[in-house]
Structure formats: C-alpha cells, structure tokens
C-alpha cells in the first residue's frame, strides 16, 4: 500500500523534504522483505585503543572504570562508508513536461537517500550542489542535525547557470578524504567522454560511483505536431526544428547518448541508472542499497 507514496506525482505535492524522504523510505522499506543482510540495529563491532584526536563521545567509560584504560567502542555502522551526493543544479534541470521538474525529482532522490543513509544505515552523508561552480558543500557527517542541514542545502539548490562537470569535480576531489559512495545526479547534457573523464578520478580514489541520469519523458520521446522554435534553458539559444526530425533522428541520438553513458560508465567500474521523472523512486534507493551491501 505504501508503494504508492513512491509515485513522483504524489511526492510532488509534499512540500517538506523531511516528510517526503520519510514517506519514501518508509514506504520503500516496508515493501522490502526483511533480510539479515540488512540489519539496522546498532550492532557492536570491536574495541579500539584510544588515540589522541578520537571523539571522546565514543569512549567506553564503563570499561575505563573497570580497567582504567581508554577504549573506543565501535559499532558496525560506523565502519561503513559515507554517502556523498553531487547534485547538478544547472538550468537544464528545471525542465518539465509535467510535475515534477527534474530538479525536484533529483531532490526527492537525494532526500530519500540521505534519510535512508542517516536514519536507517547510520552512514555519514554529505552534499555538493554544483552547476559550473560548486555552489554548496556540506561535509559528510553523522552528527545530529546533519539531515536537517542536508535538506536545507537541497532546498536552496535552485537551478541556475550552466553545467560544467570538470571544475566542480576537481574541487570535490579536494574534499574527499575518505572512501565512500558518491552519487552524481544530473541530466548529463554533455559528451559522455567528457563526463566520465571528469568523474573517473572519484572512482580511482576508491569510491563507489553511481550516476543517476535524470530525464523527463519528453526528453526521451518528445512529441511535436508542428514545427516549433525551441530555446535552450542554459544557453538561451533558439532553434527551429521540424516534427520529422524529432520523431526520428532526435530519438536515435538520445538513445545513443544514453547507451554510451551506460556502457562507458560500467566499463569504468561505475554504476549507471537512468531515472525518468514519471517513474517511482525505488529504483534509485534499491541501487544505493545494493551498492552499500557490496561495499560491506
């Protein structure tokens, strides 16, 4: 029953990202079969000797009282990787042929992943919003209030400017200290070679990289009854096109672009997932959980 809350059209009516993420994840989790591979309890992993600089909150004070030695109590969750979402907030992401917009759909996915990671998986989660620059960076963390910060960051991510993968990803590498899962959410209107060339360093650093390719149904199978003037949302350049072209050549070129992205990303050891804005969000969540399990 809760699966219906994964429908993008229903989610578009929810204004609060918190509530939206909770709805999506709860609905998604409730639809899963309980499996021992996905334990969400705070499972004890090991004791580790305290070294200066460690967070004192994790010191097992009971053990210190008995042995007068400082040990850090480590849980299994804390041993997992961190999630970092790179959200493309360029102008092309505000395209829509019907609710939701691509940027909204991307927000829903990001919010749901954050919620799943922080609340259910106890993973650290961070956010990078970029267009042709890095507009916002929230460090991955599991600290209380992190989820709220991430949601705020998502809400501030209004589309503007153009997309440029190279510059923000180079910058992102500077923030990368620890291996984890990097999720790139974008419509990838760029040459696949250029995209992968920009993203590949993430994978070389040991990150598991997932490309969520967000497209509107009208971008894959556009319908045009008469010739029309089209305007590019990013460059604002205009072009007159004819229906015959849209029906034939355009579709072939888009399909080729998607295939190229999928093939090249998988060849580079990255995961690729095409998400159409009229499809439920569970595909993205399932992809994330699958990767996370493989990492563990």
């Amino acid at each position, binding site marked *: 029953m809760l699966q219906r809350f994964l429908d993008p059209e229903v989610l578009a009516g929810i204004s609060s990202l918190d509530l939206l993420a909770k709805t999506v994840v709860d609905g998604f989790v409730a639809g899963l079969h309980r499996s021992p591979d996905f334990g969400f309890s705070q499972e004890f992993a090991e004791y580790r000797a305290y070294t200066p600089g460690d967070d004192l909150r994790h010191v097992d004070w009971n053990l210190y009282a008995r042995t007068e030695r400082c040990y850090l109590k480590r849980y299994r969750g804390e041993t997992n990787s961190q999630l970092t979402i790179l959200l493309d907030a360029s102008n*092309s*992401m505000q*395209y829509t042929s019907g609710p939701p917009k*691509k940027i909204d759909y991307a927000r829903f996915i990001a919010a749901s992943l954050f919620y799943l990671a922080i609340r259910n998986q106890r993973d650290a989660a961070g956010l990078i919003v970029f267009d042709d620059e890095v507009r916002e960076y929230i460090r991955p963390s599991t600290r209380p209030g992190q989820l709220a910060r991430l949601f705020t960051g998502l809400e501030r991510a209004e589309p503007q400017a153009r997309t440029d993968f190279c510059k923000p990803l180079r910058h992102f590498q500077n923030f990368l200290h620890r291996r984890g899962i990097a999720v790139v959410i974008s*419509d990838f*209107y760029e040459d696949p070679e250029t995209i992968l060339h920009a993203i590949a360093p993430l994978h070389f650093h040991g990150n598991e990289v997932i490309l969520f390719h967000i497209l*509107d149904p009208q*971008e894959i199978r556009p319908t*045009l*009854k*008469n*010739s*029309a*003037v*089209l*305007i*590019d*949302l*990013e*460059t604002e*350049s*205009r*072009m*007159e*096109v*004819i229906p*015959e*072209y*849209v029906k034939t*050549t*355009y579709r072939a*070129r*888009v399909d080729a*672009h998607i295939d190229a992205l999928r093939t090249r990303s998988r060849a580079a050891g990255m995961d690729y997932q095409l998400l159409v804005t009229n499809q439920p969000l569970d595909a993205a969540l399932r992809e994330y959980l699958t990767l996370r399990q493989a990492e563990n």
Partner: protein
Amino acid sequence: MGFLAPWFLGGLAALGVPVFVHLLRKHVTVPRPVSSLMFFERGIQSSTRHRKLKYFVLFALRCALVLLVVLAFANPFVRRAAASQGRLLLIVLDNSFSMRAGTRFSEAKQEALARLAEKSRGEKAQVIALGSQVTLLTQQITDDAQLKAALTNIQPGDGRANFGELGRVVRAMTETMHGAIDLDLFSDMQRSAMPANFADMVLPGNVKLTLHSVAAGAPLPNWTVESVDAPAVLADPKDPRLSRVVAVIAGFNTPAAVKQVSLLINGKVVATNKVNIPANGRATVEFAPLNVGYGFNRCAVQIDGGDALPADDASVFSVRRSDPERVLFVHSTGDTRSPLYFAAAIEAAAPSSFVVQSVAAEQTTDFDPSKFAFVVLSDTPSLPSIFEHALVAYIGKGGGVLITLSTSSAYRERIPLWGASVSKPHDYARNGAATTIGQVDFTHPALAEEHPGRDNGGWDTVKVDYAAAVDPGRARVVARLMDGTPFLLDKQVGEGHLLLLTSGLDNLTNDLPLHPVFVAFVDRAARYLSGSELLSGSRLVDSYVQLRSAARPVGTQASVEVIDPDGKRPLSLSEGRTAQSLRLTRVGFYQIRFANGHDAVIGVNSDRRESDLTPMPDDLQQLWSGAGTATASQQRSAIAEEVKQPMSLWWYVMLLALVTTMAEAALAGRYMGTQREEA
C-alpha cells in the same frame, strides 16, 4: 453593375481590423523551452515558410470575408437582359382535324422540333397542343429531352382549333408571368379557326408571336359531307317521311365536279348517287328508303375520289330500328279531349314511332310503366298507389313522365310524383283576359329550335286561360307566362325526367293544342322523354354525352361502359362508376352503355368548319403576329427595355462569404492550434 444600398460600403473601413491584427500588431511567438539543444538540428524549410504562407492566406481570407459581408449589405446588382434569363419559349403545335390534310401535321411537327433544337440550353420552354382545347403538355422547363418527347407524342386530333382560345390561354399565362414570351405557332393558319372577334386572338404586348404556316401556296380544294339528315330511330322503313337520308355535299375552293356519293350501312354500300357540285358550292343528295335491320345500324355517307382532306369525306351516323313504342296516356275519367289532341299530335309528328294508349287513372293499377316509352299524366290529381309507386321506380331508372295540370287538380294540394303542391291557381279567363307565353328556353330538348321566329317560335300566339302556380324548387323552368308564372318545368329524378305543364292539354285551359307549335312540342317532348334521341344519331367532336344523373350518390350507381372508335375503353373502372359525362373526342362510332342500362351507338363527326382549308389572309396573319407595324416594333423595344431588369447578386455574395468563412475557420483553427502547441 451597381449597388442598391451603396451607403453600406462605408463598412469597408472594417478592413482595418484584419490589417491591424495581421500586419500592425506584433506577432508574439512563444518559444518552447528544452533542456538542451544538444541533440536538435535546425529545420526551417517546413516550418517558417509554411507558417508565413498560412499567415498570408489567412490574412487574405479575413480581408475577403469583411469585403464580402460589406458587399452583401450594399446589395450589388447587374442589369441583365431577359433574353438570357426569364424568356419563355412557347411551342404551339396545331393538331386540329384540318392538320390531317396531306403532310401538314408531319411538316409542322418537324418544324417545331427544329425550333426546339435551336433553343438555348438554359432557356425555358413549354409545349402546347392546339386542338379542340389548348392542352399544356409540359411545365415551363429547360429539359430538352422532356420537351422533345412531349412534342413527338402529339398526334393529329379530330377537334377544331380556335385561335381565340389560344389567345385567352396566353393572356391568362401572362397575368402570372411577367417575362417575355416567344410564341411559335406551327399551324395551317386556317381561317375558320379565327374567332368571331379578332380581339379575342390578340396577344399581350410581351408576347412575340412567330407564325410557322404549313399551308403555303393556293388553298387546297376539298369536298366534304357537310351534313346528314337521317332519323335516329326508325320504326317503319317504308315511311316516306322518315325513312330517308339527306346529305349536303360541300366543296371548298373546288371547281365544279360530279361526285359519286354512297350510303353505307354497317360497312356495305347500299346506295350510290351521282351529284353535280358547283364550284365552291353545295349540293344535296337523298337516299330513300332507308332499309335497315332491327337494332343499331352504323351508317355513313361517303364521297368517292380523293381530295386534300380524305378524313372528312365520310359522315357517320347510327340509326336504330325498333317497333313503334307505346306511350301511356293517363287521364281523368271524364276527360276525352286531352288524349285526342295528344294522340293526334303524335300521329302527325311521328306516326310510326309512337302508339298512344290512353287509360283512365282509376284503371292503371295493373299497368307496368316500364313497358312504355314514356307516360303522360293528364290532369290526374290522384293515382292508384301501386301505379304511383311503379312510376316512381320507373322514373328512377330513367323513365320520362309528362304531367299536365288542368282544372281537376287545381285545388288539390299534391301533384303526383312531383313532390310539390299547387299553391294558388291563376284563372286568367275569370280575371278578364287570357295571358300568353312570355319566355321560352329554346335550348331545352323539349322545345329545341335552332332559329325561333319573331313570334317566339310560335308560342306568342298561344292563349292561356288557366295555369297552376307551382313552386319550381330545384326544377328548371323551361317556359314562363307573361306574368312570370312557370308554364313548363323540367325536373330530374334519379335517371329520369319529369316534365310539368302547369296547364292542360284539353283545349279548355289554353288553346295550345290548336296551334302548330303543339305538334312540334309533342314531338320533341316525346323524343326527349323516351330518350330515344340520345341512343343513336350523330354528334360533333367535342360534344358531351351525359352518362348518368348526379342525383344518386356515388357507389349506388351502376357502372358505365364506353367503347371508343378505336375499340378501346376511354374510361377506367373508377371513372366508369363516377363519371357524369363523356367528351366525344374521336371521329367514328362510340358504343355506350348508360348507367340506367340503355345501350347507345353514336356516330361522331368532326366539325365541318375544319374542312375549309382556306388559310388566313396574309395581312391578317401579319396583323396578328405584329410584324411590319410600327406599334409592334415599338412594343417590342419597350419589352426589351422592360425585361432588362437589375438582378441582385446578394445571394451569390452571401454564398461566397459563407464559403470564405468556412475556409477561414478551418485554416485559423489549424494555425491557432500550432500556436497553442508552441505555447
């Protein structure tokens, strides 16, 4: 070309609306946003150019629509001559009896067909046959095939043409139709077809008459049997007064000639005489005695030798031979004078046709009236009821009764069979002076006289001392006294007739029996009441025969059977049950069985005026057709001016505006649809 309401042209200012919308107002095109133009390619040819073309077509359509609506209100018109529209061609083909002469009819028909072929395609025409009646064979149509078929189907008839009748029909036609008419008459222009008054055949001013005469050259000589005097009923072939046939042979435009005239009875020549006919004159030939067998005999008087019109060389008539018929004369007991006078008159008029049997009123109980030709009730105020009932049935089936009223029935309220009563008798003798007959209807068969003398046909000298005053009711008053009192009345009862003489036959109430006119009256009344005249003899074409009386309701009457000269039945079964009369249209013998069961064989001849083939004089033809006269040409030019009338184009303009509106709606719908999609 002009405008009936030119001030509406001010509406052309509305043309500014589409000009503003299309040319002055900036056209805003809302582009359609896409995420990226990365995969698109420019395609201009089928978009912008088509749209611009659509745009200008739409602009032109809108301007045309405004223009047409304004024009429709301004009501444009053109002046068109009626020659191209509204002109009617009347093709009149004479199919009267005289057209049977030589090849006149076929020539006239060929000329008419040729004229029809010259007709322009859109011109309306009507085909008319001019015979005894003016018959409109088609409506006013443009269908050449239908017109040609109607013209081809016209056959020569036996009737007499009358140009006066044609003039009357055309004048009636022009009362409802105001356009110009071309009347083409194909005829032999027979002089005898002219009416007595030339004004009757004059055509209205908008009719252009073209005469196509097929009787060119000298008039053709023609002999004909002009008239035949023969008894319709013959009882005794040896009666020298009746048993004879007198025929008049006439020649028109003929030289003096000796002609052989034959009498044919039932197809066999029984007698032949030679007769000298003077140039353009008449001669009489007599055949006596007339030996015919019992029953109906079909007779004809025929001239030998050919002439221009062979169809009129014979005159047909029928003679019915029968035994003398009995007449029942019922009188009051003491009256011996009436039967005497009546029998003497019958004996004088038709000695071998009728035998009078007189009987007193009280002794009529055992008499059957149906065995008598007719019955006379002479001053019989009361009758045995059995006999009276028998008389009622007898009259209903077609019998005839003559009732006379004398002093005996003066103060009796009821007149037997008549149904009315004597209200107040006029006793002129007692009042001082006898009166006389003042008014006589000579068209009635009982008093028929073609040329009555100045003494009112002999009736002026009759003195009437006494007459019963009878309310005529629905009866026809045939003769009146000087003071207007009905003297002789005729009333139809069922199929039969009642004649009521309001005075007596006894030489006491009047002196009619002493006058010569009494014999003629008794003779004609006897023939009328017996009905024998109607069952044989001869008639003219286009005369009518009464088949039944209208007194009885439809459905209770017996059917009538008619066989025409061709052996066909001209009446359908339903017409045979309802038809009141029959028009005799063909020359020959008609065989008729009336509703009352009587059989008749009637010979029918054409009107002998048709035998005179002399055409109208040329100057008269020119006068009729109007050619060569100044007034006619002036009239014609006036017609041409009149018929050149303005024709409004409003309807066509509105039709064009409607088409433009539909085209504009279709194009604008597609155009705006494109814009919405782009938006």
